[in-house]
């Protein structure tokens, strides 16, 4: 099953490679991994999207906790959570595609953030599966370039990950 794991770690050089090294050394999947400093500059927050059986996920959480730099780990799938990912897509917007691209952008609540004679650059946020659905829905031949941030996640309501 797909899991989203959030963690807080010391914002030190090498911290990221400890996590990515752990995943490759133990053969765990990484679908995406995002990291950035938090409002407390000594801490980084990371979101890892992974998949595996319950036993594997349990091991992943334990192994992450074992890393000396990791302060807190939360498996978001243990409760209710919100997941968002940002994608920027550059699509063809010549006469053939221009209307359709505008319409699909609106349907997926995207925003056109750059325009040229022949292309649109569109920003879309949502769960990773929503972004997948957008890509599925438009004509493959129209896609010029895509870039995705990987998912970020946060617990709903009172579920808070903080030191």
């Amino acid at each position, binding site marked *: 099953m797909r899991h989203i794991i959030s963690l807080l770690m*010391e914002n030190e*050089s090498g911290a990221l*490679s400890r996590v990515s*090294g752990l995943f490759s050394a133990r053969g765990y999947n990484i679908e995406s991994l995002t990291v950035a400093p938090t409002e407390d500059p000594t801490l980084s927050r990371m979101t890892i999207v992974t998949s595996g059986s319950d*036993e594997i996920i349990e091991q992943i959480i334990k192994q992450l906790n*074992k890393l*000396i730099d990791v*302060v807190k780990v939360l498996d978001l799938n243990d409760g209710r959570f919100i997941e968002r990912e940002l994608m920027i897509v550059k699509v063809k917007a010549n006469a053939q595609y221009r209307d359709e691209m505008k319409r699909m952008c609106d349907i997926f609540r995207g925003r056109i953030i750059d325009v040229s004679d022949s292309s649109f650059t569109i920003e879309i946020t949502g769960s990773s599966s929503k972004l997948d659905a957008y890509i599925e829905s438009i004509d493959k031949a129209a896609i010029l370039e895509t870039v995705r941030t990987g998912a970020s996640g946060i617990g709903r309501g009172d579920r808070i990950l903080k030191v």
Partner: protein
Amino acid sequence: MSSNYISGAEIVIRCLHEEKVKFVFGYPGGAVLNIYDAVFQQNKFKHILVRHEQAAVHAADAYARSTGKVGVALVTSGPGATNAVTGIATAYMDSIPIVIISGQVPTYAIGQDAFQECDTVGITRPCVKHNFLVKDIKDIASTIKKAFYVASSGRPGPVLVDIPKDITAEKYEFNYPKSVHLRSYNPIIKGHSGQIKKALSLLLSAKRPMIYSGGGVVLGNASSQLTKFVRTIGSPITSTLMGLGGFPASDKQFLGMLGMHGTYEANMAMQECDVLLAVGARFDDRVIGNPEHFLSKPKTIVHIDIDPSSISKRVKINIPIVGDVISVLNDLNDLLSKEKIKQNISLKNWFKEIEQWRSMNCLSFKNDKQLIKPQFVIQTLHKVTKGDAFVTSDVGQHQMWAAQYYPFDKPRRWINSGGLGTMGVGLPYAMGTQLAHPDAKVACVTGEASIQMCIQELSTCKQFHLPIKIINLNNRYMGMVRQWQEFFYGNRYAESYMEALPDFVKLAESYGHVGMKIEKPSDVEPALKEAFSNKLKERLVFMDFITDQKENVFPMIPNGKGLSEMIIAEDL
């Protein structure tokens, strides 16, 4: 600049003094010249100059294994650090607390492919508990303090501190922190009391209880607590290779080592028990074989371990208890003292069954008039040393024979590489052990292939007058490899024959030691007696025992098979 400013190198030394370090095992080089200059000007610890950095780390590791204190190694950048990697990985796999200080090129040269630069922190990351690159002289003292703390607390392990050369020359005031707090690292010491109660009542009501003790008991200094507990509940107990000595081997309740080359009775009892208590052990592949086969006989498993990630890793645990083994065993003993222990009838029946397995005498072997049996050498070693030696070993058949035929009654006496299985550790392990215990008998059980992997250390032994007794079980084969080739590869002995062996007697003599070659069974005991006699008390003795070439280690569980699927000697 105030007068109490000292160099970064001196700060490193002062930190080691604060940690009461007695020995530093090392090898100099460009990046650590400042540190070595400071080593030269102090006399609070002794520097042991090895002949290869791998041996420095192994020796520091053995110092830790045999004393429980943190071992320290000092190496230079680049090749010094890469040579140390095998030693670090070996210590990591067996959770040994050591601190490795490595020199690094100056901070301004990092990333420039400078002379003798390598990414030491990157290379060692997967085989250390933690590592640090110190970029500022202000951080040297606090980092070394953290390194010792992390290495020795929780589940122990190696910690490396990489120090660029320029900051060892700069000056700063020395201030050693009194304590460390890491918000991201808080090992759990105390076990959950509810779980402990549950575990005890399960064990007391079990019909076929079994204890499986591992290296964690030795590392956690919990032998006497374990012994007390096991003797009170009266159950049988087995130990892993790493746990030997954690419970006295001469005790009737002890069934011997379990696992791939474990005894018949230990493996059968492990398979057939109804409640299993695992203490500081990790159910690894060499120990329980195939996990599905192991669980095919239903049992309730209690697991005490300081490392949560060891629990339910290979085998699902019913009652996990995360905590320091010594603390949990103390709690168990306290509860037990309030309990009225009834004579357990079913325990009697359980032991009846065990005695039947035991009567198989799976470790028996036939002595020969002409050929020296390696098992006989170890048995005689045990007799001559009265079971009181520190025994280090290399990796191979000789290691298994040492584990099987030298029963250990005390912890920290059996020093070997269990997890990584590193050939070459034997001699440096003996060095670290002998330095830590100058008056003790230290025997290094090795093979003609393994000993050649760190043979240069005979020179270190000469320099520091280490009276180690080397027991070379010379079968002219990489015996363990040959055994697998015999069993599983149709006797095709690919590259496992040791050609062009040196004359070990002359070799030992050329390093200034005593050499002996023993070719007849009747000479085994006299030779060992002489080697351990007062006459040779101060000398390293290299005993080259020419043994039966085709002897195999039994019992054996073939790779991937289950605990009760052992091959016993007569089966073949």
